[in-house]
Structures are given as structure tokens and as C-alpha cells.
């Protein structure tokens, strides 16, 4: 994308005199700014969605006053945070205190450079994309420890120490789970990983249920791996039920306790950037990234018809069990199905790969993360370590072995 942008800049007569290196630098800057804008806007939208989702789960309405349905609430909150006094505690380590939030933010924003939003829309098509993301995102822990230590507050220190232990522990199973996918593809390039998942096929290659060729349906092992990764990643980004570094009821606010105003907003920004990153990674690695789940437009029509049938059954089930009538899933799927049958163009668009599918999948994962957060209690530190070292890590190792054996048995690789 940077190359394309540079070429596009040079194609103007007035600008062509600047030379390739200047054009390259300019487009680099533009792309970086675009990514940052995406992260910031994304956080504002996600905070609103999270507040609404939590409100609906808790029989509340959530923000309703600022703007229609409270849509401008997070904008107002962000403005309020910008105006707040910037407090640095007297006994804090000033340099680390100032650097800490920025380290976290930069580490989480920079990872988006390798995320392919569609087949053309990505900042840098690295051949080590996956490795880059995993390694860069682990720098976050440095910033957290900096912030926690620099605050000179016992609660912050506890939060930072917990966070360091947690993130480092969970990086190992997460990495090994991703290696299982890399073993299948044979590449660390995220575009290659996505392209491998094109088309439709049978579940686990031999059960005759037509499903997309996503890696979650590749083999039973990768099916488990997807969930292992989701759990591990939830822990890595410090979200409930693994939010012990900032556990509100224990450590006040963990490593964020002493931060206020803009610095605190940076933590918030990076928190949502990380959640989005995990959602993108899950959809890229296991759910086919920007690939459409439907092979062609007939597939779209049939696929959505099946989804509507499922929605009808689900609605009837809920009606029988709780006596409540929830019409939204049914209505939505019905509308899309009718549209897919009436307008072939719409069906073709649905069947074509693109940023729409990427955002849909990532949105679904983010919704799941929110769902976790507002239903589960929080684990204790040692229980968290138990889950990491004694459950998830062995599981991911077994998965890696299993995937290798599976591929040998199905003849995908030969020795």
C-alpha cells in the first residue's frame, strides 16, 4: 500500500519532482497516520459499543443523553479526558511515568501495520507478518511494568507484577497455537495464510458438511486451537476473566491507578487496540480473514437460507424456554436472505472477499470478548497461572503434534 501510494503521489506532475525517497517517506507518514486514526476511532466506537452491550446485558439502557442514543457519549468523554489536569505524583519516576503509556500505545498501534484488511488494503505485506505481530505486541508488557513501577504506588506495583507474569505466561501457549497454523500453511505471511483459506470444502476434509475452508474447520486439532488461542489471547490483553492486573475490586485500578487525563486515555486506547488486534488475528488465522464464507452467489443464497432456518429454530427455542420473543436475529437474517434471493448483485457482493468480511468477523470476536467480560467473574493469580501452564500449554503442544500427524495422515504433507 505504501508503494502504491508513493507511485500515486509521483503520478501528479507537480509532485513528481520530489523524488522517490521523499514520496516514499510521505506515504509512510500518511499510512501511519491512517492507522493511528483507525485505532483512535475504533476505540471511540468500541467504548460506546461496550457500554451499550454491557447495558443490555445488565437490563439497563447505557448512555442515552449525548447525541441520539448516546452515540456521542464517548466523544464527550474523550474531550473531558483531554481537558483534565495532567497529574504526575511527586514521588513518581517522572521519565518512566511519561514514557510508560506511550510504550504501550506504540506497541499496540504498530502491530496494525501488518494486519491485512483486505487483499490490497494493508500497510506492509511482510513475509514474517505473524511473527512480527506476536513479538511486537509483547512489548506492551514493558510499558505496563514501567507504568506500574514509576507510579511509586503499591497497588500499581502489584498490578504491573501480575501483568508481567500473566502476559509472559500466556505468550507461550499463544505462540505455540499459532505455530500449529503456520505448520499447515508453511508461511508466516498473513496474506498467504488468508489465501490458503479460500473456497469451501468439507468439515475436517471428510465429514460431508459443506463449510468454508477456514482453518478452524481444517482439523479437530485446529478447531481446539482456535479456542485455545482465544482464551490465551484474552489473557494476554488483560480482559475479564483474566483482568487481574487492573482488577478493579482488588487493586483499585492496577497499574493505571495513578494515571489521569490524557495518559489514562492512552491506556484505554491501547486496551481497545489490543482487543481489536486479537479479534483481527483470530479472524485472519482461523476464520479466513477477508475471505467470504460463501463460495459464489448461489452459495450465499443457500447459506443465508440455512442461517434463517437456524434463526427460526433458535427463536422458537428461546420462546419455549423463556417465553420471550427475540425478533432481531430472525428479522436480520430474513431480510438478508430475501435480499440475496431477489438481488443477485447483492449475493455476488456478499460472496466476494473484502474488508466487510474482515470487520464482520473481527466484530463478532470483539462481541465475544465483551460477552466474557460482562458475565464471568475474575480468576485469581495462581489459578490463572494454573490455567496457563497446566491446561492451555499442554493442550497447545498436543495440538501442534496432532496437526502434524493429521496432515501426514490426510496426505497434505509427505515425508
Amino acid at each position: 500500500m505504501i508503494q502504491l501510494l508513493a507511485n500515486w503521489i509521483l503520478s501528479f506532475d507537480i509532485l513528481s519532482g520530489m523524488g522517490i525517497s521523499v514520496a516514499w517517506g510521505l506515504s509512510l507518514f500518511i499510512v501511519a497516520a491512517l492507522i493511528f486514526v483507525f485505532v483512535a476511532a475504533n476505540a471511540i466506537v468500541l467504548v460506546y459499543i461496550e457500554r451499550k452491550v454491557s447495558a443490555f446485558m445488565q437490563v439497563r439502557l447505557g448512555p442515552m443523553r449525548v447525541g441520539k442514543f448516546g452515540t456521542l457519549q464517548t466523544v464527550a468523554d474523550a474531550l473531558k479526558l483531554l481537558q483534565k489536569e495532567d497529574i504526575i505524583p511527586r514521588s513518581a519516576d517522572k521519565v518512566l511515568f511519561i514514557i510508560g503509556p506511550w510504550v504501550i500505545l506504540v506497541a499496540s498501534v504498530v502491530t496494525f501495520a501488518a494486519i491485512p484488511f483486505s487483499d490490497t488494503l494493508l500497510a506492509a505485506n511482510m513475509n514474517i507478518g505473524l511473527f512480527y505481530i506476536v513479538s511486537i505486541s509483547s512489548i506492551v508488557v514493558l510499558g505496563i511494568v514501567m507504568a506500574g513501577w514509576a507510579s511509586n504506588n503499591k497497588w500499581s506495583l502489584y498490578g504491573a507484577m501480575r501483568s508481567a507474569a500473566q502476559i509472559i505466561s500466556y505468550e507461550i501457549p499463544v505462540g505455540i497455537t499459532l505455530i500449529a497454523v503456520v505448520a499447515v500453511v508453511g508461511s508466516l505471511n498473513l496474506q498467504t495464510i488468508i489465501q490458503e483459506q479460500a473456497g469451501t470444502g468439507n468439515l475436517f476434509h471428510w465429514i460431508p458438511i459443506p463449510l468454508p475452508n477456514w482453518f478452524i474447520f481444517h482439523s479437530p486439532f485446529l478447531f481446539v486451537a482456535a479456542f485455545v488461542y482465544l482464551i490465551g489471547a484474552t489473557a494476554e490483553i488483560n480482559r475479564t476473566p483474566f483482568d487481574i492486573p487492573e482488577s478493579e475490586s482488588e487493586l483499585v485500578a492496577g497499574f493505571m491507578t495513578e494515571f489521569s487525563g490524557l495518559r489514562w486515555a492512552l491506556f484505554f486506547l491501547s486496551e481497545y487496540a489490543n482487543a481489536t488486534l486479537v479479534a483481527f488475528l483470530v479472524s485472519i488465522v482461523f476464520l479466513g480473514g477477508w475471505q467470504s464464507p460463501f463460495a459464489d452467489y448461489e452459495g450465499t443464497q443457500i447459506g443465508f437460507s440455512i442461517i434463517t432456518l437456524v434463526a427460526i429454530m433458535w427463536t422458537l427455542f428461546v420462546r419455549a424456554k423463556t417465553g420471550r420473543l427475540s425478533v432481531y436475529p430472525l428479522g436480520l437474517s430474513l431480510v438478508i436472505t430475501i435480499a440475496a434471493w431477489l438481488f443477485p448483485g447483492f449475493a455476488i457482493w456478499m460472496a466476494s472477499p473484502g474488508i466487510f468480511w474482515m470487520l464482520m468477523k473481527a466484530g463478532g470476536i470483539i462481541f465475544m470478548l465483551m460477552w466474557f467480560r460482562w458475565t464471568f467473574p475474575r480468576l485469581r493469580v495462581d489459578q490463572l497461572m494454573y490455567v496457563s501452564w497446566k491446561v492451555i500449554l499442554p493442550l497447545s503442544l498436543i495440538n501442534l503434534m496432532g496437526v502434524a500427524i493429521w496432515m501426514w495422515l490426510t496426505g497434505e504433507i509427505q515425508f
Partner: protein
Amino acid sequence: MGRLHAEEMVLNMGPQHPSTHGVLRLKLTTDGEIVSHIEPVIGYLHRSFEKHAENLEYQMITPFTGRCDYIAAMGSEHGYAMAVEKMMGIELPERVEYLRVIFAELQRIASHLVAVGTFGLDVGAITPFIYCFRERELILDLFEMASGARLLYNYIWIGGLAHDVPPGFVEKTYEFLDAFDEHVAEYNQILTGNKIFVERAADIGVMTPEVAINYGVTGPSLRASGVNIDIRRTEPYSIYDRFDFDVPLGQGLQGTIGDSWDRYYVRVLEMGESAKIIRQALDQLPVEGDVKSAIPRRIRPPKGEIYFRSENPRGELGYYIVSNGKNVPVRLKMRSPAFSNLSVINEIGQGWMISDVIAILGSLDIVLGEIDR
């Protein structure tokens, strides 16, 4: 390299902390995450209730009692009113007794809802808390109908009630009860059986019956340890002997008897029992009767002293009143259940992690207004 210098760190939890249930301060001596000693520091909410009481007429003390245990103001008022009535030998109309029981039990449900919800909050589950407050709101609506207030009622007066309940109150209470069982099932679904919640609460902070009795722990926390003492049953006051209800005990369903999970679950079960009592009381409620007919003109208890105890949502609430025959008590001492319940925290919280100490504190269900008085 010299020897690594290691020492225990004193961590000051509170008085401003999200999970100390008010303005409690805990001095935790910590070795890493492990807490080796807990010292509760109280008094941040001291309002000198007992000294005030020595200078106030009996009927003026009633609003103060509600301000002690502000989560269960009806219970405190009920206990105080009964103590003075017993001193003066007042016979109450049936309707007053029934209404008082209805309010006391509604208050018990409301108080336990707060306890259950905040315990969930302490272990990180936010949504159950909101669900609990949704139902508490309905109870507060009922209280508002009757007394006009939602937190501090001054409704149970010595010798009667401030007003009779308005028309429609009984129907609304029935409505609330009908929906309530379903809601309790909801809490059990989202919290009680949750694997993470069980991991966080079961086997944590086990209180053996001996420890509980030695420290004077009462109420649901004591019953969770398997000790069958409920003053409504062992020493029935008011008209509690007329109702059919069970006293739930801790059974160690998820771990050991007397762990935090038991203390939580006993409260959940007690809400159901209270609902049963309210239903019976509503069924038997006499239609006729003036709630103010027995209120004495002058409240001057005869010379003497009394210790009267009743079962508050948090445990045994006792009032020791010394009278010299005048309209002002010579001495009024309140035996606060939460104070004794809090004193056990060092014994059962030692050696656990910081997160567990918060869970244990939450499971004891303390109210600082009552501890500091």
C-alpha cells in the same frame, strides 16, 4: 552480590478502596501476594450513636438506629422498638406485628441482595450485582409506598408503625414474591454455579464452628459454618413462631463447610425462606387494626435494664438499655453483628492471597455504619 534483602510489605487497603464496603481500612502485611496478617482499622464512620442515645428521648432514637445498619434499617428499627416495648410491657395489635415481620423480611431480602451482589462484584462479576439491585429496587419501591423513604425509614415506631400501609401494598408485595423465585434462579445460573466463581469462593476462608463461636460471629456467616442458631427459631420474638420456614445451613456443597461459597449460598437460600415467611404473613395479615393504637403517649420505661436481641440480616443485633424511669435512657449499647463478624477476618484470612482476602471480606457482609456506630 550481597544477600537479597527481602521483607514483608505493609499494604494499606482503604479507607478509600473499591471493595472494603465503606470506609474500612485493612492493614495487610503481605509477602508477595500472600497476606500474613490483617489488621482492621475502624472508626472512620464513627458517629457516636450510643452517646447521642443517652441524650435523646426514646422515640427520637429510632431514626438513629436506622442510620447504623443503613443497608437494613428496618431490622435495626424493629429490634430497638421491640426492646423498648418489652421494657414497657406494651401489647401490640396483630396487624402491627404482621406488618413488622413483612417489612423485616423484605429488608432481609434487600440486604442479602446487596450482600450477594457485592460479593459477586468483589470476585469480579459485575452483571449479577446489577441484577440484584434490580430486585432490591422493587423492595425499595414497596418501602417507599409505606414509609415515603427508600433507605432510612423511621417507620417502625415504639408501640406501632408510623402509618398503615397504603392500599395496593399487599397486591404489589404478592407480585414481587411471584417474580422473585425466578430471579433467584437467575442468580444461581449466572453466579452460583459458575466454575470461576466456585474456584474463587469454595474452600476459601474456611471458618470452623469453633472459630465462629469464639469470635462471636452470628447470622448467615455463623450458619454457613453449620451452627444452627437463628434467633427467629431458637428464641422466637415477635410472631416468628407462627411461620413455617427452614434455617439454611452451610453444607460444603462445593468445598468445605464454612467457606466463602457457603456463606454466599446460605444468603441465597435465606432469601427464599424470607420470601416464604412474607407470603405466609401476607396470607394471615389481619385486615382490621389501628397501627397507632398502642403507641404510648409518654415513653418512660420503668427503672431497670434489658438486653434484647433479634435476628438482623447480618446476625444477632442486641440492644442493651438501662433506664432510670425517665424519658431518656441512661445507657444504650448496641451489640452490632457486623463488628463481631469483622473481627474474625484475621483468623480466617491469614495466609490467603490479596484477592482471597477481598473475597472473604465480601462473604462476611459487613456494614461500616454499624461497626463504627
